């Protein structure tokens, strides 16, 4: 076919088909994007704390990324959430082995019980597991 054979009809047909194809592809792209949309991930509820050797007997380790504190006593491993039970601020360690909330000054003892309000519930105890590979895992859910 030489150039003279491309009629106006053929040209319009080509444009029409091109537009239809493009709109179809864009539409499919939108549907694909809709179907594969990833929502913001939920906060993690399981934390690999590393080898148990990092937490010697008698240690008290604050884990800011949880936030929690890991205790290793003669009874084994335990953990307390450092989320204040009043409104959810992160509590800090105080100078008497307890915890104090920087938002509204709730105080908790070393074992998490309420010393001073406005919080009226103890800090939440979290589950800690020692896996066969010698690593500690913390679960917040």
């Amino acid at each position, binding site marked *: 076919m030489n150039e003279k054979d491309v009629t106006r009809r053929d040209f*319009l*047909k080509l*444009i*029409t088909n091109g*537009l*239809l194809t*493009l*709109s179809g592809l*864009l*539409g499919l792209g*939108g549907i694909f994007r809709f179907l594969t949309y990833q929502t*913001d991930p939920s*906060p993690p509820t399981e934390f690999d704390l590393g080898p148990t050797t990092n937490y010697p007997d008698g240690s008290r380790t604050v884990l800011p990324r949880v936030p929690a504190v890991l205790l290793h006593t003669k009874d084994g491993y335990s953990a307390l959430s450092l*989320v204040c039970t*009043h*409104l*959810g*601020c*992160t509590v800090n360690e105080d100078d008497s082995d307890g915890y104090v909330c*920087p*938002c*509204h*000054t709730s*105080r908790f003892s070393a074992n998490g019980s309420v*010393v*001073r*309000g*406005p919080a009226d519930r103890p800090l939440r105890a979290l589950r800690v597991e020692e896996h066969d590979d010698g690593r500690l895992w913390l679960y917040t859910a």
Partner: protein
Amino acid sequence: MKRTISFAAGILVLALVFSAWAEARRPQPMPLTPTLTGETEYCLTCHADLEEISPSHPVETYGCVVCHGGERLALDADLAHSTMRGGKNPSDLAVVEESCGGSDCHSGQAADERDHIQRVLTSVQATYAGAIANIRYTFGAQPDLNAYLGTRAVQDTTTQTGITSLAAFDPARETNPALQTFAENCLECHLNSEPRPGDEYARFSGCAACHTPTATTFPPRSRDAAEGLVHTLTTAIPYTQCNTCHNRGNYDLRTMTFAPRDDQPADRIHDYYQPIAQFTRCEWTLDCIDCHTRSESMGDGDIHNNQKEIQYVQCRTCHGTLDELPHTRTLTDPNDLAFRLAALNQGARHLELGDTIIVTETGEPLWNTRQLPDGTFELVGKATRQYFTFRPVMGTACEQKPDEQESRYCHQCHSAER
């Protein structure tokens, strides 16, 4: 037919291209999931540079929406702001219960000292009941000086004062024109009102009237504050904030107008206070909140007739009298309110169990005071962090008469030379 299909396909392509362009222009959302709500919000996409409002309200715990309202997932400014409570000020008393209330926040139990909103709503600062009663009595609209009306209708079901409610003051129902003029010109200094125009009056309404310092006149503060762009809540309230209402001039009862002072206050003692009044050193070196208590300023939960009924701190509260030392309390209970108040005004005073502080006649802790080992007392300025020491009157050469114990008698000898 083909032409129609071609046209429709063209429109579709244009629409899709426009959508892609519009989305490309949209900012990348900055999600925040506050601990308190657990619901993601995108406010920080545009407001990430806003200063933290207070140490008690960290944004990662509260987010923005729980206080301000708004559409938490909207990225369009108009849509995001369309359902905000109180505009820039969620503490406006019209919306404060929804914004700042809740039993764990500022609408809790009186026994826990967490009934801030209930107390403020019935306080004289919000009802303006004394001024309204005074003016209505003066112009014959009521038989006595008791409070019957407030800026808004309020109720108190657990009244200790005998006043169970106030109806809303409605100028349209007043027959005396002076009272209507009063309503037009003289109702700009209470917590329900917007301030008069002018930098010297710049403040918000509601809680932020006091807790969000915006004063621009003395000392000079940022223009941002004057334009309502300040994002701060504090209990360290400087006296300049009090003076956005107080000390600004006088009301002329003949014309029922506000007559603002025509000078620009600069020197606190010589220029600031009303010329006819007397002031002791405490009153012009300390901030108002260094002596006046939370129940005086925010109310005690009861409806009162006027300011005089609720304002009770006097010189003797801290200094005692010739016969009596000031009331004190040694802190033995870790749940003592004094600890919470001190901690919320961070850095002003570190109280410890065993400290002895001054308390008022009603038992309110003046947590910024402390008794020193030699029997004298120390006070720290809540806003200035300055330390002052003072001693009780007892044992001094003061010749105060036993029956003249009010502050006005102290002023006769101890007022500043002006």
